[in-house]
């Protein structure tokens, strides 16, 4: 991994170059718009638009993702980082495939938290996207939801990379809390973006473009509680338990790899 300040101590989250920081910020804004689109829809919007919006956004998001990921990868990563990224992608994809049959037992977020923590926000953003894409390709899961999942899990891992510097059990506690909250946030964001599609129109738990934002959020909370609380809770608990049980040794393994990968000082870019 090419780092502007040369080899750094292994506990410092890798900082982004200014250019890739701009791209990460842009992808965050895009994510905000893509996931919160039901709040933007004007009153009186017709049925067709509610069905179509996620698909139109799913066509726009891959372009933004492509730009962001290519910028971060081309600017900040060397061959070792790419190989590490590939292997961690495989780990995440396998873990995700293993948890697919069980309701909410999902270990992938554990891998994302720890890797994002060790290798920094840029690496985390790319890892989240590549993991979801690889897993979707392996398990026939490509669809309009894929760009959303890629973006959400990328931001999840990037968030873990931006956490403050702590060591020891304090770090584990911080990662566990982040994993719990982040897993819930992932589920809520995904559900919210596809809620108008999932619940149909005109029902008691359906999205209503004419209602106030507050009313819609309330309806969504009820819908989410009724349909996917168990999934979200299962995901959050799995992530937290894994962080507490296996977090420390995995941090050690990845930090050791990071130190090895930076053994030779990279040539100046």
């Amino acid at each position, binding site marked *: 991994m090419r780092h502007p300040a040369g080899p750094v101590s292994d506990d410092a989250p890798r900082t982004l170059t200014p250019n890739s920081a701009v791209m990460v910020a842009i992808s965050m804004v895009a994510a905000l718009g893509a996931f919160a689109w039901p709040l933007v829809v004007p009153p009186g919007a017709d049925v067709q638009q509610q069905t179509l919006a996620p698909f139109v956004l799913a066509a726009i998001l891959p372009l933004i993702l492509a730009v962001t990921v290519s910028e971060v990868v*081309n600017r900040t990563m060397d061959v070792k980082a790419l190989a590490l990224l590939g292997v961690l*992608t495989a780990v995440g994809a396998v873990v995700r495939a293993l948890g697919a049959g069980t309701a909410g037992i999902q270990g992938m977020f554990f891998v994302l938290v720890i890797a994002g923590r060790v290798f920094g926000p840029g690496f985390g953003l790319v890892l989240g996207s590549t993991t979801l894409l690889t897993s979707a390709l392996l398990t026939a899961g490509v669809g309009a939801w894929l760009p959303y999942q890629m973006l959400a899990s990328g931001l999840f891992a990037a968030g873990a990379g931006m956490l403050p510097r702590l060591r020891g059990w304090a770090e584990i506690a911080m990662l566990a809390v982040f994993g719990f909250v982040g897993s819930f946030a992932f589920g809520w964001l995904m559900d919210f973006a596809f809620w108008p599609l999932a619940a149909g129109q005109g029902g008691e738990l359906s999205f209503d473009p004419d209602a106030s934002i507050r009313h819609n959020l309330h309806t969504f909370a009820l819908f989410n509680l009724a349909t996917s609380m168990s999934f979200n809770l299962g995901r959050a608990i799995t992530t937290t338990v894994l962080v507490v049980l296996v977090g420390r040794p995995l941090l050690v393994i990845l930090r050791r790899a990071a130190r090895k990968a930076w053994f030779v000082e990279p040539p100046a870019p």
Partner: protein
Amino acid sequence: MSRQRRIHPWAWWGWALLVAAATSLTTNPLLLILLATAVTMVAVVRRGDSIWARGLWAYYVFAGVIIAFRLFIHIIFGNTSSTATVLFTLPRVELPEWMVGITLGGPVGAEQLLAATYSAMQLAVLIICVGAANALANPRRALRSVPSALYEVSVVIVVGMTMAPQLVLSAVRVRRARRLRGRTTTASVILPVLKDAIERSLGLAAGMESRGFGSTRRATGRRWSTVLMVLGSAALILGGYLLLASGDVFATHTRLHPAAPWTILAGVGCVVAGLWASGRQLRVTRYRPDPWRLPEWAVLACGLAALLMMIVQLRTDPGLLRPVTSPLGWPPLPVLVLPGVLAAAAPMVIDPRGRMPRPVVVAR
């Protein structure tokens, strides 16, 4: 693998997305069934022998689950107090005060249930379109034809896809070894597997580096590519917002913000130019690239024809595309769209003659 030439994977994706766009314009169940049949027939006839070719059934299952879930939600939570034909009546449950205005159960009307079924069917056909593309386009080959700016990311994904089965084997091996020693915990299997994988990645990196991977990267023209990409992404976000905030996407009403399509077009242009400029910094070659010739254009044209016929119908008589369910009745068949459906099924017979091109290395 046979050496028979196949249609370019991105052509299949283009065709499937165009048919999906056509699907998104109608809730007519007859049309939806016809479109699903067309897409499925193409997928079944033309899919290759890769492992992805067998994935279509998973999308069918998912589509079925979507329909069932929507109908379930509609029956339990659907607000059908003013209905003409009552199919059956569920017991009403009044929920506590904090769930304001929500009641469970009540009478279930045939009209509303039918409307909910139509709209769920539309969603299901959209999913089947994507499933067909997934079965037809081998992702390994699609990854080989990405723009060179995304070349390194595509390598990461190929490494991930190749490593995943090896990891499972590695886990089985470690587990067996642990069991022979009489002690298996999750951690005692996970950690050696991960350690092994990380070691392997460093070995892989050394191997790639020693073969010159990534050593042709030049640092020229970087600023331009970044400026273009930032501008393009910002334009895409703005355009998406305008599109959403202004009403109908296909402008059947006149509420479409005039700047929305242009902003999106400009954004796409900037992003493509930025990716192109960024890709020029990396000089890589392709081994035996998939050609893009007449059959590929024909496949794309088929998808486009389906979409165009749908738009023509939308402009002349949109009512046929969205049949009313009240009063209840058999949905009408829009004859004008039938050639479009045939066009969607036409890639069944588009067969690129000849064999794979000779192995050549072409600069990207």
